């Protein structure tokens, strides 16, 4: 019961901070920056589910983030294209014709479905292939990382059709709303922040459900679960697919907020960077991953502007120290304090 109350208070605090305080206190520029961090936080919630609760060290969430982002970016490019219907960069670098696989994303409905469905399907395919064959642990981590590498390389190679290294950028409107208008930019922040709260609510329900207990059981003793008559692969696949869908949604929100998506945001390095906030916040907690992701992204923006070289050392040291010595993240510290308080 106390747990329930804690979660509800957490949601209240989160809603207050994101929906009331941040818009009131932050400049438009800062708010938009926070919107970007919120997107990272949504990815982090998914990683918490797959890695923290499910034990699947996924080093390739950038792929799902990227899929959601590129789907949205394609739609925005097509919507911006004007009467010719051909996005600007294609006229510059390509044949001047829109490839057939772009066409479905002219439709806003297909786009919104695609943002969730495409990452989910890719995760389902990979998950079914590896988990059913009991490929796990480090093997799974490596495969997920290789997927990220392959995806980024694939994007870089497609200059004329998907923007290559430049990626897709220069969006002017978002479902008909002009993106230069500060009011609409604020609106985008509200959308992202609400999405984060919804995603957290989904995670909460999953964690307190029987599925959540089962997922932890699979994480700790997969083979034992098999001997209870479950196929652990199915349980892992569900968690992995949900995590992928969350990353896809985050990517789709990232695009209008940040204004660009390129291979540099989806490859091996950004994929693994998603993990540090989760590790710091506490990988198996509900709010920890989201809070950790926002704090790390904020620290990175602040520090790397003024001391770029120092930031890399700092990030490396964070990975090293937090994962090695605080495996439950800073939430360990919080629960230690609680325990000492209860003891006295």
């Amino acid at each position, binding site marked *: 019961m106390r747990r329930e109350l804690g979660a509800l208070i957490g949601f209240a605090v989160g809603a207050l901070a994101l929906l009331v305080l941040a818009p009131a206190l932050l400049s438009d520029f800062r708010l938009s920056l926070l919107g970007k961090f919120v997107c990272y936080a949504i990815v982090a919630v998914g990683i918490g589910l797959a890695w923290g609760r499910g034990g699947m060290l996924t080093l390739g969430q950038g792929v799902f983030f990227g899929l959601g982002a590129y789907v949205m970016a394609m739609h925005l490019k097509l919507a911006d294209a004007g009467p010719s219907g051909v996005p600007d960069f294609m006229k510059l670098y390509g044949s001047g014709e829109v490839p057939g696989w772009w066409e479905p994303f002219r439709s806003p409905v297909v786009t919104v479905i695609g943002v969730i469905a495409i990452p989910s399907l890719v995760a389902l395919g990979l998950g079914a*292939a590896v988990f059913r064959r009991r490929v796990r642990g*480090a093997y799974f981590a490596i495969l997920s990382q290789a997927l990220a590498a392959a995806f980024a390389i*694939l994007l870089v190679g497609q200059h004329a059709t998907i923007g290559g290294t430049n990626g897709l950028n220069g969006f002017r409107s978002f479902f008909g709303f002009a993106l230069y208008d500060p009011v609409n930019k604020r609106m985008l922040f509200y959308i992202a922040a609400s999405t984060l709260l919804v995603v957290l609510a989904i995670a909460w329900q999953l964690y307190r459900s029987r599925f959540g207990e089962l997922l932890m059981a699979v994480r700790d003793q997969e083979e034992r679960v098999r001997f209870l008559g479950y196929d652990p692969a199915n349980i892992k696949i569900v968690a992995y697919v949900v995590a992928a869908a969350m990353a896809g949604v985050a990517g789709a929100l990232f695009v209008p907020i940040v204004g660009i998506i390129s291979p540099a945001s989806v490859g091996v390095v950004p994929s693994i960077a998603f993990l540090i906030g989760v590790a710091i916040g506490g990988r198996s907690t509900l709010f920890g991953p989201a809070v950790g992701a926002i704090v790390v992204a904020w620290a990175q923006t602040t520090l790397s502007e003024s001391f770029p*070289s120092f930031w*890399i*050392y700092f990030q490396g040291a964070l990975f090293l120290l937090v994962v090695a010595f605080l495996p439950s993240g800073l939430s360990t510290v919080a629960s230690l304090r609680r325990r000492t308080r209860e003891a006295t």
Partner: protein
Amino acid sequence: MDAVLGQLFAGLSLGSVLLLAALGLALTFGQMGVINMAHGEFMMAGAYTAYVAQNVIADAGVALILAIPLGFVVGGVMGVVLEATLIRRMYLRPLDTLLVTWGVALILQQVARDVFGAPNVDVRAPSWLSGSVDLGITQVPAARLFILGLAVVAVTGLALVLTKTALGRRIRAVVQNRDLAETAGVSTRATDRLTFFIGSGLAGIAGVALTLLGSTGPTLGSNYIVDAFLVVVAGGVGQIKGTVIAAFGLGLLQAGIEYSTTASLAKVAVFALVVVFLQARPQGIFSVRTRSLA
């Protein structure tokens, strides 16, 4: 015909590079079950060793020949330090080790940037490696032939160590059953450390070799590390021949697919093929049978 032979050689050459990069990784992963993400940075250290050697010694050929053992020692020492300070403490959490060593990799890359500068540096190939060699049927770049030879020497050397020396027997014992080896009086601690020395040293040698193929920069290792990991996964752990077959298999596959499509599509296809391959053999080509769970 010539084009096919050329592509075949390109595949073998890529395979030899992958093999050099993956050999040490397979050794340490097989022994301890930990994935060392800093392995790529040990390669990078080997490459900078070659660069420094060349700045000290004028003769490019002498510098290269000296750099090979030097790179081995540099990589090996870095590996032992990593093992003794961090990995040792984390045997029970192999997945976390992966992230911890990733942190180490970030730091090492930045150290390289701060010491040698962010732009890439070049190591001159000695004159006897800069041309191409006529093999009768086709012409091949001498540097690539040299690397192929180096890979063969490295594999043979490692195989000899593993089969003919007391250390090798201890390593194989620990790979197959760590607890049993320990009760049988094998010092797993010393064995682990030596394994890490050899495995990381091999990364150093791989780095030296890579200087012959392109310029050297702080992210040199990370460019190869993902492919090297794929080789380890596909090859299975515990037996060198799995790594050898997987490295050349992936190299030839990549070159072959590249021939008919593009390099980037080939990468994706190779990844997909590895996943498909794991459907048939989830433990890789070869695996040491151990008894789990019960």
